[in-house]
């Protein structure tokens, strides 16, 4: 039996956000903290290798996909038509831009991954501990978080509890662990079907957001796998998922410590400083996270 294990990241840059930088940083941290190899799926392999000459050492595999706007001459192992949704990306409370949101393909991870046991991470996860290594030591074949703790602690989080007011339970596709089993193959095939028929499922499950979101697709697929009910198909990832939103600012990273400026309640444009240490966290403000990575990327 194939018992290989590793991490898979999806990193597809848009006009302003360098997801590959985050992926490169994350892969380096994963090697140290989790002792796991990382595969990156990207539409910018040439850029990656050009910008980070040691990328082929840092990553176990670099898998190319086609982004249909690009005229790339790279070897392609996957190809998919996508509708290029626009999403508002914030950099704190006062700055925002509408950018392309290239989040498709995650449903193909079952076929893409070279590993028997795979940990799928968003590139904006900052690894500060080894908590995810425990996924590989437990017996459940599919793990995902159904809740996340917002460090600001005052914002409404109902959208992260249910997909809509009268909707189903929400799951975070940010961190997912799975083994290659027959049941999981059914799950990921279903996920692809949901993605292919997104407007139908979006309507059925009363999802108002205009763009495709993996969290919703995973939530719907889990709901269906559980017999259109709440059930035990998906078990919880180890520990808790913590996050800061894109209205907060990632200010500084130093070793296992990070300083955030958290949005201040009722005072737009004002922030409260917070120091966070030694626990992995999901940082949604990609602009400020990338600025912090720039300062430390070669010190890992």
């Amino acid at each position, binding site marked *: 039996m194939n018992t290989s294990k590793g991490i898979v990241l999806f990193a597809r840059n848009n006009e302003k956000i360098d997801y590959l930088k985050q992926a490169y940083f994350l892969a380096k941290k994963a090697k140290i903290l989790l002792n796991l190899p990382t595969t990156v799926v990207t539409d910018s392999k040439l850029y990656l290798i050009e910008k980070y000459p040691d990328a082929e050492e840092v990553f176990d595999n670099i898998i190319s996909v086609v982004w249909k706007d690009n005229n790339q001459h790279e070897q392609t192992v996957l190809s998919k038509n996508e509708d290029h949704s626009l999403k508002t990306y914030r950099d704190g409370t006062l700055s925002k831009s509408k950018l392309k949101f290239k989040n498709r393909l995650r449903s193909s991870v079952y076929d893409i991954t070279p590993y028997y046991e795979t940990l799928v991470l968003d590139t904006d996860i900052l690894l500060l501990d080894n908590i995810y290594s425990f996924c590989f030591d437990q017996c459940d074949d599919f793990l995902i978080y159904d809740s996340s703790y917002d460090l600001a602690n005052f914002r409404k989080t109902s959208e992260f509890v249910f997909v809509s007011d009268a909707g189903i339970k929400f799951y975070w596709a940010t961190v997912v662990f799975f083994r290659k089993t027959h049941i999981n193959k059914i799950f990921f095939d279903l996920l692809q079907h949901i993605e292919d028929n997104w407007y139908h499922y979006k309507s059925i499950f009363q999802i108002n957001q205009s763009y495709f979101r993996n969290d919703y697709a995973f939530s719907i697929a889990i709901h269906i796998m559980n017999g259109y009910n709440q059930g035990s198909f998906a078990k919880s990832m180890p*520990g808790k998922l913590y996050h800061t939103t894109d209205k907060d600012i990632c200010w500084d990273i130093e070793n296992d410590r990070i300083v955030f400026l958290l949005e201040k309640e009722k005072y737009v444009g004002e922030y409260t400083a917070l120091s966070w240490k030694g626990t992995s966290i999901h940082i949604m403000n990609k602009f400020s996270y990338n600025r912090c990575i720039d300062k430390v990327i070669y010190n890992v």
Partner: protein
Amino acid sequence: MDERLEKALDFSNFMVTLHNQLRVFKEQYYQNLICYYSGGQFTVTQELITFCNMMSTRGYKEIILIDDNENPIEIEKLEDFLTQILDIYFRASNSYLNDYNKIKKERSVKNLVDL
């Protein structure tokens, strides 16, 4: 601005930062209390420690516990498990106490986040 109000606002800002910092220390304390054993996830509580200690004192070498994900987990070496959860409990509590003691002495926002 009236100096009295300015001082009060400075202090108010400090208190918000202090409150947030204490809140995340507590969050991280609970995260640090998690023990992974035999494929199960257990949050170490005083109740869990007492129960395991009681079973061990009564001569049990192995027990079955329900973990955080409600899976039944066979603990084959109870003594070893008890040692591990005690170690986790002390490490998490000490770390929380250290952070708490450091922050208690600070009087500026800068020092609170520089810890």
